[in-house]
C-alpha cells in the first residue's frame, strides 16, 4: 500500500477508536423509555454490579430524567411519554479494581558537598613586638552521584465498562461504547465512569 495513504488511515483510526459506535439510521429522538438491565458483578467483587447500576440511575436523575424502579428489580428511565420506542441498556463491567499497581521511577541525587576547614594559629616570636599569624585552609570536595534505580509503588482504582443500547422491538444494537476511568478511590472512580457514560447517552436522546 502507498505509504502516503497509510499515515492518514492510521491517524483517522487512532483518533476515532475511543468514540462510541452508533447506528446512524436509528432515530434516538423517538425513544420514550430506557430499561436498565441488571448488571452482573465483576469477578470477585460482589456488589460491583449494583454500584454501577445505582450510579447510572443516579446520573440519569441528575440529568433531570424520571427514574423508576419496579418489582422485577429493573430500573426504568423515562424520557418522555409522547414517543413509542423503548430500548434496553446493557452494561458489562470490564474492570473493577482498587489494586492496580503503579510504579514511579525516581532519581536519587546526591549533590555532593564542599567542606572547608580553616585553621588559624598565632605564634609569638622572641621579639615580643612581632607576632606571626599562620592560617591553613583544607578544602574537601565531594562530587556526589546520581542513581536512576529508585522506584515507588502505589495502588490505584480502575473501573471499566462496556455499554450497549438495544432496541426492544427489532433487537437492533443501536449504540455501543466502552469507557474506563482511574483514580485514587474506587467509589468516586465508579461514579465518574457512570457519569461520563450517561453524559454521552443523554447527548443522543436530547
Amino acid at each position, binding site marked *: 500500500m502507498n505509504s502516503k495513504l497509510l499515515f492518514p488511515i492510521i491517524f483517522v483510526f487512532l483518533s476515532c477508536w475511543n468514540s462510541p459506535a452508533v447506528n446512524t439510521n436509528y432515530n434516538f429522538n423517538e425513544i420514550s423509555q430506557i430499561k436498565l438491565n441488571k448488571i452482573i458483578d465483576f469477578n470477585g467483587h460482589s456488589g460491583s454490579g449494583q454500584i454501577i447500576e445505582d450510579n447510572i440511575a443516579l446520573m440519569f436523575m441528575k440529568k433531570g430524567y424520571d427514574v423508576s424502579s419496579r418489582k422485577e428489580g429493573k430500573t426504568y428511565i423515562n424520557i418522555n411519554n409522547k414517543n413509542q420506542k423503548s430500548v434496553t441498556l446493557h452494561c458489562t463491567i470490564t474492570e473493577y479494581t482498587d489494586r492496580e499497581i503503579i510504579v514511579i521511577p*525516581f532519581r*536519587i541525587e546526591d549533590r555532593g558537598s564542599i567542606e572547608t576547614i580553616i585553621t588559624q594559629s598565632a605564634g609569638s616570636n622572641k621579639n615580643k613586638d612581632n607576632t606571626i599569624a599562620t592560617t591553613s585552609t583544607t578544602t574537601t570536595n565531594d562530587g556526589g552521584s546520581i542513581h536512576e534505580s529508585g522506584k*515507588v509503588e502505589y495502588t*490505584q482504582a480502575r473501573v471499566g465498562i462496556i455499554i450497549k443500547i438495544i432496541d426492544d422491538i427489532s433487537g437492533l444494537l443501536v449504540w455501543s461504547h466502552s469507557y474506563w*476511568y482511574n483514580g*485514587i478511590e474506587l467509589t468516586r472512580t465508579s461514579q465518574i465512569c457512570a457519569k461520563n457514560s450517561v453524559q454521552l447517552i443523554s447527548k443522543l436522546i436530547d
Partner: protein
Amino acid sequence: MKIKKIISIISFLIVTNNYINALPKNHLQKAVAAMELGLFNEALKQIEIAKIKNPTNAQVFRLKALLHEANGDYNKAILEWENCKQNTNDSNLINEADIHLKNLEEY
C-alpha cells in the same frame, strides 16, 4: 541473667532496626504512605518536595493530579495533567491524561 539481658537488648535492636528500615526514606515514599492513609493534603506536601529532585517526572505529575482530583481541586488537577502530558512520550499516559482532562473540563 546477663545472657538474658544481652538477648533482650539484641532483640530490641533488631526490632528497632526493622521499624526504622520500614519507614519511608524519601519524600515520594512518604507521599505514597500518606496517600494510602487518606491524608491527601500531606501527600501533596511531600510530592511538592519530591518534585524538586524529579522536576520532569511525568508519574509524579500524574500522582499529583490524581490527588488534586480526589481533593476536588479540579483546576489544579487540570494543570498537573497538562504538565504530565508535556513531560512524557508514553502514549498510554497521554491517553489517560486526555480522558481525565475531558472529564475535568466539565466541572
